[in-house]
Every structure is written in C-alpha cells, then in structure tokens.
C-alpha cells in the first residue's frame, strides 16, 4: 500500500516531466524551427487563412453591407447576427457580429456550432432567414451558405458556393461575372493528395485576389 503510494507519486512526477513538459517543449521547438508560419497560426497580413472571418459587415458604398466581397459560411450567430438573433435568442448577443472566433456562441473566445438537431424548429426558422438574406442580395444560396460549420469559423467554401455569390459580387463591384468565374477557378484548391476531402476555396485568399482585381 505505502510502497505503491510512493511509486505512484514518483511515476506521476516522471509522467508530468516527460509527457507534460519535455513532450510539449520538444514539440514546440521542432514546430517553431521547421514550420514557423504554420505553428504560429498561418497568420497573413489580413488574418489567419485557417480562421473564417465576418465579411457581412464589409462597407460597400452604394450597395448593401458585405455585397462587394465573397462571404464565408454563417457561424453560430450567422454573419448576419442581427438577423439570426431575433429567432435564436437563447444565447445571443446581437451587437457581437458573426464569424469572429472570439464571440461565437456568445462566449468570449470559444469555437462553437449551433448544435441544433435536424428536426429543430429553430434551425428551420434560422435557415429561412438566411435564405431570405441571400435572396435579397440576388443570390440563390447553396446548402453551405445557409448552414453553420462545426467549428463556427469554417474558413472555406466550395467553388459551387463561390459561384452562387457571383451575381451579388458582380453587381457591387462592377467586375464581369466571367472574370469572377475565372478568379474562382484559379483560387480553387483540389482534394488533398487527389482524393481526400473536397475541393475548397479559402475565402480570405479569394477576397485578397478579388481586391487586386478592383
């Protein structure tokens, strides 16, 4: 009994040293040495390419907010927080705006999904409002554009989603739809190793490329 207690304490300390500290510090060392940019969060001038942003409040003179850029997927509060809050009042802070990882789910700093079930009335009502939001901007939304991702800040959309947004972006920027179509093709990233996952476009990179066109 006592000998086991002593052994347990010794083993717990050894485990803490090896797997708590040495493992983490060696890992961080290797990561910072060889993959500095990834290890720091893939940060570029305008944000991390791995973290979705709120594009819906982008100022577009003469046009509705957010219509002169490609928008990502809604997060827990939607990029359209104010719209969604009306129906999903349970955990909602309307002034917070969507897609910022620090305000998702109304809890400062947490990633989160809606966690609404497939037969949820709330989800039904939210989706209707999201469809109305897109229709008002001349977009016939794809499923991705009206559903919330698992993390709450999915940085990607599919090429199909991006093409669905072309009418909105073309109208607000004056760039020809054919040019936008070509831009989307150029920014599309294929499946990993040719077969894993889906084709996708990083919304931040797409908008950076779009900004260069204007």
């Amino acid at each position, binding site marked *: 009994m006592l000998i086991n207690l002593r052994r347990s304490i010794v083993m717990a300390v050894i485990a*803490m040293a090896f797997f708590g500290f040495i493992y983490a510090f060696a890992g961080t060392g290797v990561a910072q040495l060889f993959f500095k940019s990834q*290890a720091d969060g893939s940060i570029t001038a*305008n944000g991390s390419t791995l973290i979705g942003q709120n594009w819906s*409040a982008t100022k577009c003179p003469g046009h509705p907010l957010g219509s002169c850029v490609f928008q990502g997927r809604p997060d827990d509060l939607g990029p359209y927080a104010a719209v969604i809050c009306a129906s999903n009042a349970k955990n909602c802070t309307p002034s917070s705006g969507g897609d910022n990882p620090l305000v998702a789910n109304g809890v400062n700093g947490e990633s989160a999904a809606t966690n609404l079930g497939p037969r949820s009335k709330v989800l039904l009502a939210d989706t209707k409002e999201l469809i109305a939001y897109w229709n008002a901007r001349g977009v016939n939304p794809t499923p991705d554009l009206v559903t919330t991702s698992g993390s709450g800040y999915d940085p990607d959309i599919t090429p199909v989603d991006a093409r669905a947004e072309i009418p909105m972006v073309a109208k607000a920027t004056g760039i020809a739809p054919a040019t936008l179509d070509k831009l989307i093709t150029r920014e599309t990233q294929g*499946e990993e190793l040719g077969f*894993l*996952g889906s084709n996708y476009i990083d919304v931040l990179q797409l908008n950076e490329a779009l900004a260069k066109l204007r």
Partner: protein
Amino acid sequence: MGFTWTIVALIVALGLTWRYLGSYMAAVFDGRVHFLGWVERPIYRALGTSPEHEQTWKRYAGSLIIFSGVSLGLTYLIFRIQGSLPLNPQHLGAVPPALSFNTAVSFLTNTNWQAYGGETTMSYFSQMTLVVQQFVSPAVGIVAALVLVRGFSRRNSSTIGNFWVDLTRCLFYILLPIAFIAGIIFVGQGAVETLAGTVSIHDALNGVTQTIARGPIGFMEPIKQLGTNGGGFLNQNGATPFENPTALTNWLSIYLILSIPFALTYTFGKMVGSIRHGATLLVAMLVIFGSFLAITSYAEHQGNPAVAAAGIVSQPTGNMEGKEVRFGDTASALYGVTSTNTSTGSIDTAYDSLNPMGGFSMLGGMMLGEVSPGGTGSGLYTILLMAIIAVFIGGLMIGRTPEYLGKRIQAKEIKLAGLGVLVMPLIVLILTGIAVSVHAGRIGPLNAGPHGFSEILYAFTSQANNNGSAFGGISANTPFYNVAGVIDLLVGRFGVMIPVLALGGALAAKQVVPAGLGTFRTDNTMFVGLVVGVIVVVGGLTFFPALALGPIVEQLSHGKFF
C-alpha cells in the same frame, strides 16, 4: 470516388499496422525490445522495481488503482491553482471545484468528456497536464487488456506481470514515438503549436479585428487520437482548423485512432500463440464497424430535413449543418463512426446536428460497448468478455464445459465476464432515468422533443463508455451533470476494468485443456457470427427502448419539427 479511395488507403495502412505494430507490441510486452533501456532502467530504479519482480492480479490492480488516484489528485490540484502557475498567457483563473473534479476524472478514465470550453477555461499548464493523462490513461487501458491476454497465455501462474514495467514500456516504446512523429505532420499541415498567447489582427479588407486563440495544440492532436482520448485544446475539437487543418490530417486522425485498437487483436493472437484467434476478433470488429459506417455515410449524404423544409431541397453535398467544407459529408461520417466505435470521442463535425440515423449510429457504436475496435486496451478486453459469453452460450448449445484457448470457462469466469458486460448498460440507463425525472436533468438539453432526450441519453452513454463526445447542445457544466457524470465515468471505467483484472488472474492460474474432437471452435466464421450476435443482443436489446424514444422516433417523424 474520393471516398472509395479514402477507405482503400485506410484499409491498406491499417492492414500493415495490424501486422507490424501488432507484433511489435507483443515484443514490447514480452520484454524483447530494449532500445530505450537507458530510459527504462533509471525509471525502474526510481520506482524500486524491476521486470523480474512480478505481481499477482490483486497487487497489479492495487498498483493501478492507487496510481490512478494519485494522478487524479495531481490533475485536480493543478486545475485549482492554475491561476498561480506559469504558462498562463491569458491569465485564466482557477477552474471551479466541480468542473475540475469532473474534468480530472474524465481524463483519468480515458474519456475526455469536456464540460468546459478549452480555450476559455484552461491555461497552457493545465492543457499540458491533460496531455499527461492522454498518455497515461490509454497505457493503463492497454496494460489492463494485457493482464487478460496473459490470463490466456500463461498456465498455472500466480502472477500476471508488473504494472509499473508494463506501463513504462507502453508509454515509451509505443505511444511516445508514434505521437511525436505524427505531431510533426499535424504541425506541417497547419496545426498551431506555440506558447505565445492569443493574437489580434486587423483585416483591412473588411474592417474586422479578430482575436484568435492559440496554444500548444499540434502535438496534443496525435496523442488525443492515438490514445483514443478525444479531448482537444479548443471547444470544437477536430472541427477547428487549428486542430485539424486539412483533409489529410483528418484522414491521419482516423488512422491514428484505429491503429492500436485493431493492432491489439494481432498482439493478442501472437501472445496466446494463435494469430487466427486474433484475426477472428478482428473480423467481428470489422463487421460491426462496417455496418455503422454504411448507415452513417448514407444518412449524412442525405440532406438536412430542416434545411430542406426551409426551401433548399437539393443538397448534393449532404447534410452540411455542423460540418466543415474541407472534409465534406462522407469523410465526416467516417470520422464520427471511428470516434464513437472507439473510446475516442473527438469530433470533426457537430454530432448534435447529424441526421437522425447518423446520430443513431454514434449512439449505437458506444452502446454496443465500444468493441469495434474500441478504446486502446478497453476495446480488446471488452470484446474478450463478449467472446467469453459467446463461448458460454456455444457451450450450452453443445452441452460441454465451455473453453476458450484451452482454458475452462467456469462459474467464476462467467460471473466476472457477465458483471463486466452489464455494468455499463446498467449505469447508463439508471442515470438517464434519473436525469429525465428531475428538473436539474431536464433543463440540460438545448433541443426540444426527441432530440432533447437523445442529448441526455448521449451524455450518459458517452461518459459510461469513456467516449467523451457529446450531442454538444446539452449544458453539461451544471452541478447535477458534473456529479452524475463523475459517477458514470468511474463506474464505466473501473466497474469493467477490475472484473477484467480479476478474470485475468483467475485464468492465469488455470491449466490448459488440450483441444479434442468435441472442442468448440473459437477461430472460425461461425464464432465471428456468435460474438457479433452476443454483442448485438446484449447492447441492442438493452438499449432499444431508449433508442426508440430518441433517434428512431426522430427519423420517423417526417415533416414534424420540434
């Protein structure tokens, strides 16, 4: 097409792992691998033990329990004083007592049920402490399975190995090297690994300033998956790009989760001297895994009913509510099945938003006792319990004393196996019953109707099976759910593990009966059918009424919303 190749790649990789990791693990536990002797020996010296010093099952179990208790205390203590410890760039305060205790128990039991949001609750120091448990708890699971395996491989033996030696070997020879190499891949793909705190960036394009949580995440990922732990750094776990940046890391996660639990069947076969017996268990696991995969990938390829009712009927990419674009519907389904057929419980999609039959599959994988292939160690010992029950039933049919691998299965063994099999359903159904009967339990769910019930049922099923995933809508950080959860976690882990250790001890002491003409074969297709039958009957019949009130009624209520 992509999904077919995903599966093919997985089968090839796991096939090789089964063969080679399986025999490597057998060599490690037989003491035939020595390249880390310079690390091992000083540890044994510090512990005052050596590989020659064998323990009886009771001493082995005693060491395991006392070590678990000490680990629990240390983890709890660190959460409580994290505010005064270093590596806390966000200056987070102490974790509240009930939550600290629930979390410490949850990581100790290989569950990683997380009633908290990682990035807003835990300092880096605390997260590193969790990583320690992510190494140690799967190792404890594996050594417990090892005792049962030795029960079959040894004869007339009063001892079953040395807990400290088995634990050390498992940690250093198996878990550490694989996790470290995989960690490099995760970080190379984009997983974050830094000790610097959050970062704020202003985006000139849209005028938004983001503050982004970071941390030592990339090297937590591989051990989270490899050890079938499941607890991530961030609230949304493997759905977040910082934990699981690409479809490649997603595939790697699935591979890591399945590698040890499947390979242990080879290790078992090797150690008992009949690879065929290991392969028989492997096939039984694959039958169940494949069935759940078929159900889930079909269910998730269908559209989301609420989205369809709102006006978007055509959903060619499947149910995307709660899913990430870079993974897509079927790879997310595969990840979900992998996570819930083992004791992992990590997520790359919001399980709460799965279609009814997708959610059914997640629950079903856990309710069958997590044997396909189950957690590291726990999967093997649970399916061995099922095999013993199957042998007993087979024995009843042909009217002979049942034997498995030459060991007579008598009243004592059957009682222990029966206890190990029934503990989990019992605690899940009792706690779910209590939760739906009291106000404190009923206020938990986010969703209304049958889905709300599913959230409660899922919470207790997940904790008792040491899975740790959740229908995330439930508000689990309440005194009721924290306390009920602790009971669920401990009973589900040690209520099965202790009978397993006792069974190992009892079997090791037995003689081996040579196989004769009338011996019931336990290494053929018929036995696969019998084992799968026992698993489905025990899990299926016990939980069918509860499932009928949750996902099944949800599936059947066409056009109704709650």
